[in-house]
């Protein structure tokens, strides 16, 4: 998302996260197979953490200082 | 009296906050419809309040806390002023050299106290039957000896020598987070006080491991003990974090990873271990505390809890903890052997790889403490193999040490003697470890004095000998005075012989099945125990020589030169003791720290711009 302003970027990520959360919930409630459910929840959680850590917490700034 | 106002202020606000916490807890309890007073619950809340009050009172408020509210803070470096003299050591001081001395002296005192408790244990075990102390007292003394020695092993080298030497050795003027460094230290006195008070609050019954269900059910000082250890864990985590960031970011120009002295490498790996695993002990004790004061059921089998959970979480920390203890010992040993053999350290890269290998393996071996605890059989094999894999990196460290000694011009001063003893003792501790890692022999040896002998060989023989190697090695740097070499050598031989006789003989009753932690044993083992006790008293007495030498040399020893060992590393290139800012000129690193006698080797350090009248440069190609 290079062309986007910083605020907009945050909102897009937030919408993605919100959609993922709701999908996660619906997925968990409707899937009966324990293994599939567990795997799906684990993958969703890791993806959400990636989004939060990268876009919200700016983990990349640890090794690449942002240009002002 | 700056010192009196600091300590008095800390104690005052600490006690007031403690009582405030008691009151708040009572208020909350009555609001929610419980009895207003429950000793362990109210005291826990009081402890947390008191701890914060103590920290703020000793000076954190003025140099740090006010900042959180946008107020001006006092210059944190003000307490480093030279003219304060000895009182600097009793203040909230951010200078890593002062903090190092604070740690070192505090933990030497704890070491002596815990050693005295070992004397009580050996007195009781001199012959079978109950003689001197009651079972309850014996349990308390044993538990206190265990936990205090663990604390010494975890913090004396890391907090004391590490704090003092690491920033100097990498050419920094302080740690990355100086105020957090002071915080790590000032968390320690409440821990020590709470631990020392535990005999008066009901004693200890669970030893240092605090296994449930006993630790949940016991009517002893368990909750206070838990809180103290959690606090100590916090101190250890913050200290570890500080070391990691310091070594990553505070190295002088030219100090590449390949040029770090071995001691710095060992501290770096140790700091990672403290940062990653100490939470295990804290979480385990938080669970015990919740079970005790909030009626939770983590370890209550009747409610679906599982006491084994405690052992998993606890050993998840406490096995890596033994590497927190031993790696600094190895680091000091390699450092000292390197400098006192007067030749380049053999297999530097392999030794560094060994440290990193231990860091990697340490997290996957914990269940070897639980072979007899009822873990599933399919876990035995993997943990046996993982545990024995550790001997590969350990072997590389031995390879480095022995290869350095080989054909070296050994300079047998006291630090070198202690460093060589580390190698000798740990070889014995390592070999006995194999019997404990192997499931079949471990089932026989578990919970016997064989285990006690084994871990004393590794921790005392490895780390505590390393601690003394470090103390004698850096004594001239820290104090600016030279210790008495004759007394130091007397201390060494006395301690070495006392230690080896005590713990070598101790394997014997262990193989015969003598239980640890029990105040009594079959009569047939009396001979062995008498020998062990007598030599343990001898071992204990050897520290009197050390104390006399340490105190006497610090007060009136002859002044030491900047670099009495002719060593190449950075800390010896500044004055003894170093100025507050460590180096008057910024150091620049160009060569390897151990290139003794290598033709054409660049000096390890030069100063930029070259200092006029600075101590002899780092060229020292031989002595």
């Amino acid at each position: 998302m290079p062309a986007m302003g910083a605020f907009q970027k945050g909102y897009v990520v937030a919408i993605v996260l919100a959609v993922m959360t709701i999908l996660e919930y619906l997925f968990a409630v409707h899937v009966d197979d324990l293994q599939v459910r567990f795997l799906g929840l684990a993958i969703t959680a890791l993806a959400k953490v990636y989004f939060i850590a990268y876009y919200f917490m700016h983990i990349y700034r640890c090794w690449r200082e942002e240009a002002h | 009296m700056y010192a009196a106002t600091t300590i008095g202020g800390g104690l005052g606000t600490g006690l007031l906050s403690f009582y405030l916490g008691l009151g708040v807890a009572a208020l909350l309890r009555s609001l929610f419809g419980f009895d207003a007073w429950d000793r362990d619950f109210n005291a826990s809340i009081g402890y947390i309040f008191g701890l914060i009050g103590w920290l703020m009172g000793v000076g954190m408020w003025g140099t740090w806390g006010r900042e959180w509210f946008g107020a001006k803070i006092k210059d944190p470096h003000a307490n480093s002023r030279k003219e304060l003299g000895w009182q600097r050591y009793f203040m909230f001081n951010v200078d890593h050299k002062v903090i190092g001395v604070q740690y070192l002296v505090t933990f030497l005192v704890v070491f002596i106290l815990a050693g005295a408790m070992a004397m009580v244990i050996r007195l009781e075990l001199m012959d079978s039957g109950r003689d001197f102390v009651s079972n309850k007292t014996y349990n308390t003394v044993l538990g206190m000896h265990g936990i205090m020695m663990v604390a010494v092993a975890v913090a004396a080298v890391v907090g004391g020598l590490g704090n003092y030497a690491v920033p100097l050795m990498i050419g920094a003027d302080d740690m990355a987070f100086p105020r957090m460094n002071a915080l790590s230290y000032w968390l320690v006195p409440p821990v020590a006080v709470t631990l020392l008070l535990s005999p008066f609050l009901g004693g200890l019954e669970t030893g240092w491991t605090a296994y449930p269900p006993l630790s949940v059910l016991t009517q002893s000082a368990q909750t206070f003990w838990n809180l103290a250890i959690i606090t100590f864990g916090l101190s250890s985590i913050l200290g570890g974090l500080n070391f990691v960031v310091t070594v990553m970011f505070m190295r002088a120009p030219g100090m590449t990873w390949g040029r770090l002295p071995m001691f710095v490498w060992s501290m770096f790996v140790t700091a990672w271990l403290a940062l990653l695993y100490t939470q295990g002990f804290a979480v385990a004790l938080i669970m015990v505390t919740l079970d005790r004061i909030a009626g939770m059921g983590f370890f209550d089998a009747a409610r679906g809890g599982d006491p084994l959970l405690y052992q998993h979480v606890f050993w998840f920390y406490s096995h890596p903890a033994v590497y927190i203890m031993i790696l600094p010992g190895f680091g000091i040993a390699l450092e000292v052997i390197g400098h006192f053999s007067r030749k380049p350290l053999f297999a530097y890269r392999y030794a560094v790889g060994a440290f990193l290998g231990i860091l990697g393996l340490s997290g996957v071996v914990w269940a070897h403490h639980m072979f007899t605890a009822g873990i599933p059989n399919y876990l035995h094999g993997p943990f046996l193999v993982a545990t024995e894999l550790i001997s590969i990196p350990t072997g590389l460290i031995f390879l480095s040490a022995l290869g350095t000694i080989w054909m070296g011009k050994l300079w047998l001063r006291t630090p070198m003697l202690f460093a060589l003893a580390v190698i000798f003792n740990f070889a014995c501790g390592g070999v006995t470890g194999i019997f404990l890692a192997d499931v079949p022999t471990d089932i026989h040896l578990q919970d016997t004095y064989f285990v006690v002998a084994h871990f004393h060989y590794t921790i005392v023989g490895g780390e505590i000998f390393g601690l003394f190697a470090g103390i004698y090695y850096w004594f001239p740097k820290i104090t600016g005075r030279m210790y008495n070499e004759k007394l130091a050598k007397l201390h060494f031989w006395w301690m070495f012989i006392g230690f080896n006789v005590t713990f070598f003989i101790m394997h014997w009753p262990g193989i015969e099945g003598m239980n640890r932690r029990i105040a009594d044993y079959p009569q047939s083992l009396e001979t062995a125990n008498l020998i062990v006790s007598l030599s343990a008293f001898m071992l204990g007495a050897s520290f009197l020589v050390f104390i006399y030498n340490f105190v006497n040399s610090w007060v009136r020893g002859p002044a030491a030169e900047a670099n009495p060992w002719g060593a190449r590393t950075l800390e010896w290139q500044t004055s003894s003791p170093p100025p507050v800012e460590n180096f008057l000129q910024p150091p620049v690193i160009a060569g390897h720290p151990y290139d003794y006698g290598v033709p054409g080797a660049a000096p390890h350090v030069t100063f930029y711009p070259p200092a006029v009248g600075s101590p002899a440069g780092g060229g020292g190609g031989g002595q």
Partner: protein
Amino acid sequence: MAVIAAHGAQTHGAGHMSPAKRLQVNRVGLWLFFFSESIIFGLLFTSRFFLLGTHQEHVDQFLGLVITIVLLASSVTAYTAETAMEKGNRKLAAWSLFATILLGVVFAIGVGFEWSVAEFGIKTAVEGQDPHNVVWGTVFFSMTGLHAAHVVSGVLMLGLALMMLLRGHFSKDSHWGISSTIMYWHFVDVVWVFYYPALYLVAGGGTHTG
């Protein structure tokens, strides 16, 4: 001597670090702190599966989803606050911080409400419950409790940051106090990303599964 030429002018040490380096050191230190804290959370998380497998007792799914969304929303306002601060918009930063604090308080109240309506306790089995699963109460209350303690401390720190901002501290180029607090807040959100499925969803939203 090229090394000296290259580094000679460079300052060294904590006392005279450049602001950019100080910031990087602080940032890495904070990340290591998160790393270290996530092990505390991770051990409790693992204990939950060690003790109960994927079994769970009945919890209010709707309430769980709502507080999860509230916490996510608070992360968005926190992000807005930090971005506003980077662009020098103090007013937006202050309002966003305020909104974050508000949402944090709502989350904490939600957890408190959840506790008060929970159909399980920590002491004894309720009617028709397998007594071996009573430990669910212990697991649920300690995990949400530890997380809520972090939420409350985060709210307090955000409050201090807002107070300092309103008093005129912080600027476009120097606002580590706000950034670090907001990173802490995101970290609290990250923990919930794992805790929410582990406590609410892993048994398929129902009870007595696994």
